[in-house]
């Protein structure tokens, strides 16, 4: 668009370049619904330099982190257009949890191990329960006349990883609980066990990546090509500009994260809520806000595979990658961090994983995720094998039956009572 004839002056070229730059900035910075939260970022800086009350710094930094996390995911998506689906998926997965990772690194640096543990644990539970729950709820309400299906192989692989991670957390916990010696003497054994388990968890995550991106890609790509039909194949901004913006955003996120981690105790005292509540509930909500919104939107559009991929993939990435990475970094730095997160926390983690696993099990087998399983339109559709009829429920039911024919194995394994109607 800037190919001007040589006869024009240089100011036109400059104006053209400025227009391009302005368009770039506009796309990256301003094309978001979270625009209103941007002023919090400079206000957080001002608050820090002019030594306002610490809780204000904390609150403003928290609010400022939300749009930045969302823009980060947009930028990684753009980069993914250039690098291809495989590496793009990897980049997306890693940067999706960049905020948690940066907060974790700062907490580790400031030796606030409990904040670190709680924030990571809270991220996992938030992804499994809050994000997944709200997606299923909203998706179910929006699609209550349709059948919502998802592929259970991806969910199974993720749940297996989560169970392994849970075992790696429970072993040090039980170790600490059963020893009759004072815990101080046990520290070495638990540390060694935690460090060995961290290496195991990293190995498992590498195997999962290999599985997902190399050998069994067909399991994970079944829905990918459907969701990009409204996006064009080309990116909105160039590769290098995306990279530069990425670095810039990461720097700002780092600064804000440092403020957050530094002022968390003052905020908790002033607001009268415990540090653990802030770490487990508030921080992850902020860090996951963008993913949360995306997951809910995809559930609305009845694309449950993507919602589940986002939520469970994020949870397993934090559990199997970020947590052992932090333990390994602590090992390198000489800090004693074990995988024992405390009885209440580990119990909550265990129940979250079991609940999610069983819920998705039941849903995966029955292939129903709507809230009203006894929808009468389905009974009528079962009686009409030939897809006739103008009603939307009839058309949808016939589409279901087409799918059933293509997928005989799944119907033979179904144990939900309703599935017998479709045989």
């Amino acid at each position, binding site marked *: 668009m800037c190919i001007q004839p040589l006869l024009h002056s240089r100011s036109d070229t400059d104006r053209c370049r400025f227009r391009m730059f302005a368009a770039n900035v506009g796309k990256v910075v301003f094309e978001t619904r979270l625009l209103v939260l941007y002023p919090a970022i400079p206000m957080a800086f001002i608050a820090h330099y002019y030594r306002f009350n610490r809780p204000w710094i904390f609150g403003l930094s928290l609010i400022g982190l939300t749009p930045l996390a969302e823009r980060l995911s947009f930028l990684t998506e753009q980069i993914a257009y250039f690098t291809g689906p495989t590496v793009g998926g990897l980049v997306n997965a890693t940067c999706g949890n960049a905020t948690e990772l940066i907060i974790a690194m700062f907490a580790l640096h400031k030796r606030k191990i409990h904040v670190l543990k709680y924030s990571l644990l809270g991220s996992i539970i938030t992804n499994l329960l809050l994000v997944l729950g709200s997606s299923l709820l909203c998706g179910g309400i929006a699609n209550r006349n349709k059948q919502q299906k998802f592929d259970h192989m991806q969910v199974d692989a993720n749940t*297996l990883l989560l169970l392994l991670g849970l075992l*790696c957390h*429970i072993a040090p916990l*039980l*170790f600490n609980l059963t020893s009759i010696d004072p815990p101080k003497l046990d520290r070495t054994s638990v540390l060694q*066990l935690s460090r*060995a*388990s961290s290496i195991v968890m990293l190995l498992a995550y590498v195997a999962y990546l290999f599985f997902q991106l190399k050998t069994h890609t067909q399991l994970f790509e079944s829905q990918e090509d459907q969701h990009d039909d409204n996006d064009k194949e080309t990116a909105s901004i160039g590769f290098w500009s995306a990279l530069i913006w990425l670095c810039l955003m990461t720097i700002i996120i780092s600064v804000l994260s440092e403020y957050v981690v530094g002022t968390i105790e003052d905020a908790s005292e002033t607001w009268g809520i415990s540090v653990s509540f802030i770490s487990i509930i508030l921080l992850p909500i902020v860090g996951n806000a963008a993913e949360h919104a995306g997951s809910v939107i995809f559930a609305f559009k009845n694309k449950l595979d993507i919602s589940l991929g986002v939520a469970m993939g994020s949870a397993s990435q934090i559990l199997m990658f970020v947590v052992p990475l932090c333990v390994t970094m602590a090992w390198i730095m000489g800090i004693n961090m074990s995988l024992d997160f405390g009885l209440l926390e580990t119990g909550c983690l265990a129940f979250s994983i079991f609940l999610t696993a069983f819920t998705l*099990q039941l849903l995966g087998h029955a292939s129903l995720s709507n809230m009203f399983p006894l929808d009468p339109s389905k009974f009528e559709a079962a009686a009409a094998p030939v897809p006739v009829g103008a009603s939307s429920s009839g058309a949808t039911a016939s589409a279901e039956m087409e799918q059933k024919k293509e997928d005989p194995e799944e119907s033979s394994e179904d144990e939900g009572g309703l599935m017998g109607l479709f045989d």
Partner: protein
Amino acid sequence: MASTEPWLQENGSVKRLTKESRHGHGHSRTAHNKSSSSLRRKSDMTLVSKVPCSTVRNFLANLQEVILGTKLSVLFVAIPFAIAAQYFGFARPWVFSLSLLGLIPLAERVSFLTEQIAFYTGPTVGGLLNASCGNATELIIAIFALKEKKVDVVKYSLLGSILSNLLLVLGTSLLCGGIANLSTEQKFDRKQADVNIALLLLGLLCHLLPLMYRTAAESTTADALSTAKATLNLSRASCIVMLIAYSAYLVFQLWTHRHIFEGPEEEDEDDMDVSNEETPVIGFWSGMIWLIGMTAVISLLSEYLVDTIEEASTSWGISVSFISIIVLPIVGNAAEHAGAIIFAFKNKLDITLGVALGSATQISVFVVPLSVIVAWIIGIKMDLDFNLLETGSLALTIIATAFTLQDGTSHYLKGVVLLLCYFVIGASFFVQISPTDPGTNSMNMRFKSSEQRIFRV
């Protein structure tokens, strides 16, 4: 049923057996013995047939078939070394390791012999025989440990057997099978796995209840002696329940629902390097005599093992619980393990699952309660309260395995995860440091042993 000299029937060259029959023999027997059969090899009878005297020839052929009929026969030499080491007072850790090595081929031979005897006794009794003697090694080690009042070794070794079957054997099989069959989809029949998981969960419940009871009673500062007595009675009652459940499982498996356990195996029996013979290779009475002899040798080696376990642990620097939970079961299961992997390579997952899950179920619901009852008879106070870490590991193992197997397909990531679970559990027992005090009966002073709790009062 079969002639006493089957090897002379076909042109002087032997046709080896171990072709599992499909004439109504239970699949459970078939699955278990199929796995070991992959370790057998042809016996070349040409040397023996040159011996003039017929009885000596029969005897030598019998000997060759039994002793040399396995690829593991090279490990047989460890047995006389172990006995010599014990008598001449060699270093105790040597006695331990030689006995360990010697047990590996013996376990495999016992399963071969029970399979031979099963030819004569019919499918049902054969299935029963396999169901009881399939884990003979673990049972004998347990009984000897009970005799020496090492209740913790019993508990740990049996728990380790269950964990090893569910995680190590199953994990490596699924991993190898998944890698070898990357392009094909691996499926198996869920019903067999479901039945086994149900029994395993029953066993888990019977372990959890005494543990929770003891924890609750201790926290309310009740009298420790009466708590211990109540836990003991609860454990003994649970064992009777478990044995009833196991007999129901046997009826289910061998009689009423046999068709579930007999997989679709008729079509591809020819790619194994075995013949289609149904005749056993040795006679009934010779099989019995060999069985009794092998059991006696296993008992001897087990006695050495149990005696020298503390010294081995001290000199090697690893805890007794690690040896009991990890090392002993690997030895006891080595033959089944190899067979399960081979069948997973050939994409016959039903057999692999039959071996691994069936063995785990048998130990959990049969061998453990049997040990408790034997302890009851001898007068030793053994309860079902394995400690918190062990019971927690068992619970998560069963849940992870149940989840892995519930959808009827397999890929290598499942094997990787199960295997890594085993490493983590192994690591958590590896970091327990045992005290260097060979004079005491209980090994881990840092963790309350069940004996100490009861006898301390």
